[in-house]
């Protein structure tokens, strides 16, 4: 690669990581990574699932210690022993999973851990509000956190690191939980922070976001830097994609429609309550036919999660009925639904889809272990070869298959989960955010798998917050807002704007419980 920007004087670099190595049992996550970030810039860190991005950032933020390597801030060498060290050197990280306290107010969450022992609520709220204003982070400091949407929670996380005066902000896949509008807003906020003298490291798998938001990009592949500090003004997304995967992935084409068959999934005036006992959605009716992918678009928190739970049998419905493959499944158990052909990719991978304390193999066989029995035993060799097969076919990057599943990177967890669910050839597929957190190739692989199921005659229901994905992939698009279906669109003839408007039918979206 020769696309390295003109050499800069070391002391002018806000962050410089060189020759960073980090090994986990069975996996080399970082194998001599180089990263240089100039002040006042937004720097993208790109790479496939498992390329080592999160690991590198955790090293920079003092969460992990590198096996080897050097870390310099403005030309001065540092060694962090913990996140607090990193923070006092000006480095703050917003992790993908938020660490906020639901019952506290926004302001309390922001100052938590760094506040004087006597909290003067009014004064702190005023200070937090002033800081939020300065960067255009629109949040109400007095509002309790549980009332906030995911996008708003993210702003609180950002405020939290700003409050601790971080000069280098790390955002690990910040946009996976945001709506398109919120992404644009985040871009503006980040620009303002960069102009204010800070620098931002931004991880994302969505290249169009990266092109819009970032100034420079560094690309990792299999733990190594393959291109550093590319100038985004002169690099296009195809080139980035090529660098990330080593070959350019074909852009997703709108798939030809398959022949429609009989309805396989039918909801009749279905209603259910949410966790707080209030109706999460009501009177939802639609059919999905064999050979059809139907998408549900909507801002998070408008009842989609509960709808998925009800279809999967994990939450009772209060009214209406659910028909699957001609059988009434309104009150059927999750297992009965699975047996009658339902494959379910839940949104909450580690909480619902996988058992975090068990091994990769144990998790892989969750749907098939009953077939791997000999007498009362599960045949270990069968289980292992099944797991190997899933890992290879769905390109899960994993070390020791007997090791804990929780050690896999986010994208690899998703690959394993999707692979496992689709392997049983379900006739009805329910996929909630199936490509969230996946890299370009991973997204394509999973979209292809869903299409393959559709073409094989399955009915696919896909719930996603990624409108572009829904528009290219689905045959029919339903928009959910405030717990009801606000409209049905033909994605072949509809524009993004039309759908977007329906998603925001009431100007203020209902916040997520």
């Amino acid at each position, binding site marked *: 690669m020769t696309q390295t920007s003109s050499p800069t004087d070391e002391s002018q670099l806000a962050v410089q990581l060189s020759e960073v190595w980090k090994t*986990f*049992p069975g996996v080399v996550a970082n194998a001599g990574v180089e990263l240089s970030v100039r002040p006042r810039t937004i720097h993208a860190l790109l790479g496939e699932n498992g390329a080592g991005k*999160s690991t590198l950032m*955790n090293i920079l933020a*003092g*969460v*992990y*210690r590198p096996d080897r390597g050097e870390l310099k801030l403005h030309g001065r060498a540092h060694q*962090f*022993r*913990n996140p*607090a*060290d990193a923070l006092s050197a000006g480095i703050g990280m917003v*992790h*993908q*999973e938020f660490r906020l306290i639901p019952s506290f107010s926004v302001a309390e969450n922001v100052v938590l851990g760094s506040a004087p022992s006597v909290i003067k609520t009014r004064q702190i709220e005023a200070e937090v509000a002033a800081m939020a204003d300065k960067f255009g982070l629109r949040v109400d400091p007095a509002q309790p956190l549980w009332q906030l949407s995911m996008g708003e929670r993210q702003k609180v996380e950002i405020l939290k690191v700003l409050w601790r005066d971080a000069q280098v902000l790390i955002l*690990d*896949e910040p946009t996976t939980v945001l709506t398109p509008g919120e992404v644009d807003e985040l871009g503006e906020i980040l620009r303002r922070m960069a102009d204010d003298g800070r620098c931002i490291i931004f991880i994302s798998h969505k290249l169009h976001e990266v092109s819009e938001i970032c100034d420079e990009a560094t690309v990792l592949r299999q733990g190594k830097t393959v291109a550093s500090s590319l100038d985004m003004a002169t690099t296009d997304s195809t080139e980035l994609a090529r660098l990330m995967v080593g070959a350019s992935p074909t852009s997703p084409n709108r798939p030809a429609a398959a022949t429609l068959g009989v309805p396989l999934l039918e909801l009749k005036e279905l209603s259910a309550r949410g966790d707080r006992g209030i109706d999460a959605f009501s009177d939802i009716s639609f059919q999905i036919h064999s050979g059809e992918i139907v998408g549900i678009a909507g801002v998070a928190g408008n009842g989609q999660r509960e709808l998925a739970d009800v279809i*999967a049998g*994990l939450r009772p419905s209060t009214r209406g009925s659910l028909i699957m493959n001609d059988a009434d499944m309104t009150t059927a*158990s*999750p*297992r*009965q639904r*699975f*047996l009658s052909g339902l494959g*379910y990719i*839940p949104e*909450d991978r*580690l*909480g*619902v*889809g*996988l*058992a*975090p*304390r*068990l091994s990769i193999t*144990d998790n892989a066989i*969750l*749907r098939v*272990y*009953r077939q791997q*029995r000999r007498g*009362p*035993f*599960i045949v*270990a060799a069968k289980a292992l070869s099944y797991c190997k097969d899933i890992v290879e076919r769905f390109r899960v990057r994993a070390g020791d298959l007997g090791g804990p599943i*929780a*050690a896999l*990177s*986010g994208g690899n967890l998703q690959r394993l989960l999707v692979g496992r669910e689709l392997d049983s050839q379900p006739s009805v597929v329910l996929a909630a955010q199936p490509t969230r*957190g996946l890299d370009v190739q991973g997204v394509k692989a999973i979209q292809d798998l869903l299409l393959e199921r559709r073409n094989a005659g399955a009915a696919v229901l896909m719930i996603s917050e990624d409108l572009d994905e829904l528009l290219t992939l689905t045959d029919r698009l339903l928009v959910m807002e405030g717990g009801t279906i606000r409209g049905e669109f033909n994605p072949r003839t509809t524009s993004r704007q039309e759908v977007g408007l329906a998603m925001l039918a009431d100007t203020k979206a209902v916040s997520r419980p």
Partner: protein
Amino acid sequence: MKRPRLNLREAPLPGGQPLAFAIGLTIALFVGTLLLLGAGHDPVRIYSRMFEASLGGPDAWAVTLNRAVPLGLAGLAVAIAGSMGLWNIGAEGQIMAGAIAASWVARIGGDWPGLVLIVVMLLAALGGGGLLAVGPAIARARLGVNEIITTLMLNEVAIRLVQWLIHGPWKDPGAHNFPLAPMLPDQARLPTLFSRAHYGLLIAAAVILISSLAVRYTAWGYELRIAGSSEATARYSGISLSRKILTVLVISGGIAGLAGGVELTGTADRLTESISNGFGFAGIIVAALALMRPSGVAVVALLFGAVQIGGQSIQTLGVSSSVSTILQAFVLFGAIGAGVFSRYRILLEGEAPAVPEKVNQ
């Protein structure tokens, strides 16, 4: 935040377990020495007596092994429930229920051949213990009632039942008005393997082995581990949680009951109020030290047994029972605790962990 924290090692220390065991034991014995000196005893004499009584020769081993049997079974009972995240605090009562059931069989089958009688007694013990757990199991599985409280309360019921039986219907008329149950018939006694060590050892070893294999390698055990790891995942995959809770708690109770049966036919002459002797509560400690893994229970129970027998023996040397109990606790936690900790690193001054404490994407 400069507090020491524990962090799981990436790989176990090579030779870590035995080494940690030795170090822990040394520290415990050292602290114990200070304790004994403080209480005015000669540590060398005390320690050598402890060793003599528990591990110094076949007779001592027999006593220790006989003690390890009920501890191991009770520990297994707690650990099986624990591997699904359930707490069976009622092993004490279930042991008594098992002993009651076995005694009842001995009363009606006094003229059966020995082998048949013993087998039926042990099966009855299994059933008796299981029966006592049925209530809490149903309450937990169907209504979500916390099993800790219900199993604990039934301990009280079981002890009252034993008292009522030996003061009333089962009182031995030949015991001159003493509240004693009659002696067991001779053919209801478990034969011995060597010295006084009885066949309960083989029974306990077999049950622990089978249970460990079942949890690790069977579909049933797989479902148990899934449910123990995440309830939502278990429901998602169609494992019937309520049925699992029901069977696991009843099996747990049954194993504790078996401990009562083995104790009755192995070491006791008759049903007494003290037949469970605290084994049910000690079983909770055994299971916890074995990290709720059925496979770890045997070793812990053996050590626990040795320490108990050794600790009791020194009371004849004038060591007060409280000093003896503290000493037992030292040795036990020093030896086993160190083994557990050897899987962790202690991070001082907030060092960065090698393995994250929380998974992030």
